[in-house]
């Protein structure tokens, strides 16, 4: 026991040392010195001005109206992208999990091939950032609101599919085994034996991802959709810092409100 604990501490110490060494090496490689971290006098004035403006955000009626409208657009894009991703995530998550497989299916090369292909697709969708998907769409088919929603949805589908399949594979198997033994089809085993048990975790995860979708939806505004990102970009380029902060606070308020709501929803789901 003592030896195991010792090994445990040893490997952890090694890991921490590795993280610190890699961090310092990265800073050196990028040429970041402590001197560079503090902005020069010229840019320092701009930095000071920008962060001081945080205390005096613009509160004109027209600015607030634009902010509210942009926030609503941000919310809409996040909601649509999440809704599409949840549906896509369930389909791919079903194909990417093995818990519903009838016994003996593991020896079927066709099934195994399909599983590997699904998981590779899931990984690929997840590995390309939503903004990069947006750029690829922009280049290949031209950008539209729909392309924006799909750009956000693709990596989200990948993430949902991965997490859903993991949660379903980790759900208790007793009910699924009983259903399978009494002759239920694999789809029924999945829908009635596995999904209900994993559902609380899945719902909690969807709530968490929606917060990420809000941010992604704000950022996609940099590519021409009138979400908060677009207005932040325009106001900042006009050096209109108080207005920038109004939009930033709008985004922050959305995240805080959603955090409070999802927190109480999560607690109720857990009970």
């Amino acid at each position: 026991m003592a030896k195991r604990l010792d090994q445990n501490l040893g490997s952890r110490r090694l890991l921490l040392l590795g993280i610190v060494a890699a961090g310092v090496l990265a800073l050196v490689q990028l040429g970041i010195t402590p001197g560079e971290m503090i902005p020069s006098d010229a840019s320092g004035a701009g930095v000071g001005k920008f962060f001081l403006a945080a205390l005096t955000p613009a509160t004109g009626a027209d600015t607030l109206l634009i902010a509210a409208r942009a926030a609503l657009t941000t919310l809409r894009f996040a909601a649509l992208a999440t809704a599409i991703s949840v549906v896509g995530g369930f389909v791919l998550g079903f194909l990417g999990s093995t818990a519903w497989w009838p016994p003996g299916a593991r020896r079927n090369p066709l099934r195994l091939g399909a599983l590997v292909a699904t998981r590779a697709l899931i990984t690929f969708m997840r590995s390309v950032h939503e903004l990069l998907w947006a750029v690829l769409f922009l280049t290949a088919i031209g950008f539209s609101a729909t392309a924006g929603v799909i750009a956000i949805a693709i990596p989200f589908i990948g993430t949902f599919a991965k997490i859903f399949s993991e949660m379903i594979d980790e759900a208790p198997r007793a009910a699924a085994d009983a259903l399978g033994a009494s002759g239920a089809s694999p789809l029924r085993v999945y829908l009635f034996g596995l999904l209900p048990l994993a559902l609380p975790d899945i719902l909690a995860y969807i709530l968490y991802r929606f917060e990420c979708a809000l941010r992604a939806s704000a950022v996609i505004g940099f590519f021409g959709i009138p979400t908060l990102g677009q207005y932040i970009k325009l106001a900042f380029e006009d050096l209109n810092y108080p207005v920038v902060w109004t939009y930033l606070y709008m985004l922050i308020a959305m995240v805080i409100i959603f955090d409070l709501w999802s927190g109480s929803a999560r607690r109720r789901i857990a009970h």
Partner: protein
Amino acid sequence: MSGRSEQIQALRKARPRDRFLRGSLIAVACLVLYSLVMGDFSFTDIFSKQSQSRLATFWEYLSEKDEPGSPRDLIRIDLRSRALDATMTTLWLSIAAMFLAGLGAIVLSAFAARNLATAEPFIASQKPVTAAKRLAWGGVVWLTRGFLIIARAIPEYIWAFLLIGLFGLGAWPAVLALALHNLGILGRLGAETVENQAPQTPAALRGLGASRSKIYLTDLVPNALPRWIVYFFYRWETCVREAVILGMLGVTSLGYYIFNEARPRDLYDVMLYFTMLGVGLVFCADLLSALIRWRLRKVS
């Protein structure tokens, strides 16, 4: 038989229901429907004549072969030769940012944890505590949490856009942007981990006269560490993806070559080449992080 179905009906009626959750579900459904009705999403958009012809051009450029030695081909070779550089820059950006975010989170978690940053940590104080002191500690927690939530609510890309605009183009504002957002997340999760720990040992240490920082460093941090490392690597995976796209703002990570070099020149094959390098890098980071998390779970 009818008795059976009545029983089922009775069970159905008696099932636990939650007004709040039901209301939330209806609100979410309405929101999605409203977004659909507002026309943010329509299939005719993506299958329009315009996008069809653009797609055709895209394929044409993609499959087109340039003469070896032609100017376009030379640019292509030049861009491809910078692949390793761009990949390493992406990797270093993500590592430097996570290192700083981790350091910051270790410090700020202490000030955001309500069980530690209080006038009477873990056990009641012998002397009566003044109201001013209570208020001051409340202020510390409130300010720290406020900073963390602002850092977290603003996405990396927007932080980077703002900081590059303010500091001028360079690696430091990009690293700072990635670090700030991740600090917001790690700090919040870190404080939660500290708050959820068993209070017995800290209370005993406090009884022996240990200071807050001693309790934090000798008991709370070591116990929170396995969890923190798991969170750290979860965030690092995401951070690599983000470091790729920060290139679009001018830092020479992979995104720079995709967005600012290959795309304006219509070198779509180079664009996809750098995109796939990003996919490969993210895949390696995922694998490493999964491996470390798996090992940690095995030993602890």
